[in-house]
């Protein structure tokens, strides 16, 4: 689903890294800080494991370096299988055919629920759970759970509460990075007055719109409502949604704020909208996650100089920090699978990974200093600081028919909203009716 992202994340931050002196990605980086990393006997000699994830290219290479560290430690042999863009489409038939991989890394928690219902997941062993309790806030633990049973470990995070801007465009208009919603609006207006459309939206990629909505909603409605809406415990017709959509319309609904108008925005996929900001220099800002860095530097911008970001300003009471991320689950009962999950959940495994570019860990015991570049360190620190109030990407928590499918649910109606922001109530009703259907299944 998140086609663009997977590739972008790694490459992006790796460029950040490279700019800052970088780490050697080939280095297996034995962890310095785990008691569990004692030169123990290789307990899993002869065990073979298959891990499936959607990562390709450099992201895959980095993950394989982590797997390699695990192999060196335990003696197990781990093979990596790429699921392609659509993890669900890859796993579905393999699960039904009774031949799943030992471990799969799911791009959305929604899939955890889905597979738990199909009884395709194996509950985590108590050692793994203990590791999770040690390293993660309860919120993350719950994300990997279904019906009170813990199935998954969040192994990788993406920071979605950022607004990227093109520094020269801000200079031209004479504005400073905004710090709250009001200054965001005045900055946008000033940039528009200077002749540059302030925002470039990737309306054709529905998930960029849900990310925007989630930041506004978390900010205006607060974490509690956010959780309720995520679980569809309050309806989409709720007044808090109206408020959030009204706020959102303050930037998406103004003709001169949207590069090319809504019809062009709706035909622009991620990361073409990034290219329009940094490559073609047609707009000033883009509201998306850390991985924008990759596309920005591909378009020729220097991340940290031309391409900068500021935290998504709070539109209400709460400073929003929304994360995306991937969850590892076991699909087969085996000792090796649990050992690998435990390793991935540990600070030791996290630290091996964190040294490589393009990775953010949700593990609170992976210190920010582990990361190879100041930008990543700063991002990691915001996650650790936000602690309990960090929230996970809401659309990824929803059943994918509602939160992650082209032409359906949230994607479709937020696109409709970008096209015509006048009928908030109608949009809410349609969202609610789709949500009801999706949660019923």
């Amino acid at each position, binding site marked *: 689903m998140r086609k663009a992202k997977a590739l972008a994340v790694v490459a992006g931050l790796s460029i950040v890294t490279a700019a800052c002196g970088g780490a050697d990605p080939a280095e297996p980086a034995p962890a310095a800080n785990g008691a569990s990393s004692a030169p123990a006997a290789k307990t899993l000699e002869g065990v073979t494991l298959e891990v499936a994830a959607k990562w390709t290219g450099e992201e895959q290479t980095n993950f394989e370096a982590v797997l390699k560290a695990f192999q060196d430690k335990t003696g197990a042999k781990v093979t990596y299988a790429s699921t392609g863009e659509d993890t669900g489409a890859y796993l579905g038939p393999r699960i039904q055919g009774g031949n799943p991989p030992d471990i799969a890394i799911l791009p959305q928690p929604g899939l955890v629920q889905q597979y738990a219902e199909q009884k395709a997941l194996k509950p985590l062993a108590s050692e793994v759970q203990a590791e999770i309790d040690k390293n993660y806030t309860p919120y993350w633990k719950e994300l990997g759970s279904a019906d009170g049973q813990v199935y998954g470990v969040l192994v990788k995070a993406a920071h979605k509460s950022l607004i990227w801007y093109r520094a020269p465009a801000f200079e031209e208009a004479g504005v400073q990075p905004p710090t709250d919603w009001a200054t965001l609006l005045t900055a946008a207006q000033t940039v528009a007055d200077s002749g540059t459309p302030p925002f470039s939206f990737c309306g054709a990629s529905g998930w960029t719109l849900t990310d925007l909505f989630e930041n506004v909603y978390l900010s205006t409605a607060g974490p509690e409502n956010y959780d309720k809406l995520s679980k569809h415990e309050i309806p989409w017709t709720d007044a808090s949604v109206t408020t959030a959509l009204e706020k959102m319309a303050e930037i998406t609904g103004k003709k001169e704020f949207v590069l090319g108008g809504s019809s062009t925005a709706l035909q622009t*996929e991620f990361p073409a909208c990034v290219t329009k900001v940094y490559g073609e220099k047609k707009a000033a800002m883009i509201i998306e996650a850390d991985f924008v860095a990759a596309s920005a530097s591909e378009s020729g911008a220097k991340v940290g100089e031309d391409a900068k970001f500021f935290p998504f300003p709070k539109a209400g009471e709460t400073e929003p920090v929304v994360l995306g991320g991937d969850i590892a689950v076991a699909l087969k009962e085996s000792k090796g699978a649990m050992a690998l999950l435990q390793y991935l959940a540990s600070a030791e495994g996290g630290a091996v990974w964190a040294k490589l570019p393009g990775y953010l860990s949700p593990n609170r015991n992976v210190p920010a200093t582990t990361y190879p570049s100041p930008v990543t360190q700063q991002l990691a620190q915001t996650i650790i600081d936000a602690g309990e109030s960090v929230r996970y990407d809401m659309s990824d928590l929803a059943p994918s028919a509602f939160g992650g499918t082209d032409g359906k649910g949230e994607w479709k109606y937020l696109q409709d909203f970008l096209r015509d922001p006048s009928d908030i109530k109608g949009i809410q009703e349609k969202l609610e009716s789709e949500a009801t259907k999706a949660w019923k299944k």
Partner: protein
Amino acid sequence: MTDRSDGPQATRGDGKSAARGASPEPQPTTPPAKGAQGPTPRMALWFLLPALILLGAMVIYPIIFSIFRSFFDSAGDTFVGADNYTAIFTDASMLTTIRNNLIWVVIAPILVTTIGLIFAVLTERIKWATAFKLIVFMPMAVSLMASGVIFRLVYEQDPDKGVANAVITSVGDVFDSSQGYPGARPRENDAAPALENGAVVTRQPIQAGQPALLPLVGLKPDLLPADAVTAKAVTGPGVGGTVWLDFAPGGGGAVGKIDDNEKGMPGVTVEAVQQGAVKGTTTTAADGSFTFAGLPAGDYVMRLPQSNFTASFGGVSWLGPTLITPAIIGAFIWVWAGFAMVLIAAGLAAIPRDALEAARIDGATEWQVFRKITVPLLSPVLVVVFVTMIINTLKVFDLVFVIAPGSVQPQANVIALEMWRVSFGGGGNQGLGSALSIFLLVLVLPFMIINIRRFRREQQ
């Protein structure tokens, strides 16, 4: 081309009637197979076995399986009766999907057949018919995936990139070329001039000797013409004022005041309006100033008509929600017109000349010959082409999937695509997916029956 249904195989059953039109020779019928030492039926089994196993296991069994599966929920363990089918006909987006298929079935086959007929007739008259046919026929060899990429390029919105809009806008520019300052507008505050129907007007009427200020923003300074110079206020006795870009690079500057680093906007048409009637028209100078010569004293509202700000025609939004299905049908025609043309040309070639000559001798006009003789004689071929196209449109998948951008996929959706999406592409509901595939099968059922009937008629 991707779908098995494409092309000839679908026509084959319907081919009988075409044969009558196209080949006057007697057709071979089912051969009598009794040889001297005729082969035994057991022999037949050996020859047939691989085919029967494959067809049984991979075509027939799936049909039966899907029928059963369509009555169960997404997980496949709860019987839900006809719920999946009800969902197909009640869900709003699903109804859009069905409506799109309807549009496809009604429009695409007629267009393809008509265009094929026209090409077939016209090529009879040219020396390079073979080359022409090859060119038009060539897309048949191109995958629909690649065709999709091709047409994404053609339909690109930006006239600098998409050839369709490049052609349209350059034609449009011949009639209406834009100069002026598209995008320029007054600031949003009470002191700034107001926007009225796209024109910029001063809020207060002015009089002679009381220069009007018309500050505008929203335009990049480098888009000003090269001759623009620093804006200057007008200090004359007459009615006049200044139109200037009220935004200094780097910010700063007072809002609504002419600052030193702000440039005038030359060439803007200004109208002096009194009680709704235009009393005078002039144009701004390089420093943005303007004066009206010889206006009688009185109160005037300064108006910058909309023509100063109209953007040049940006082309058609082919891939937007309204035009997406017609745009994809255009790609479909590009792919299939050659198929229709070649079949119809073959039919045309087989029409007996004497019938036509006889009619002409009887004094029929060419149009009458075409209408009364050619078309009826061709009708079997036309039917074959038409029916093949109907089947193809029912199963169209790749083109829609590839050409429609994510945000307009719902508006472009068709059943074959929805079936994939629901079952594999994130929907995860194979119950509904099975119901959709059965629905698709039901839609082609009439053609299956036609095929069988034709075949049996032929056997007799």
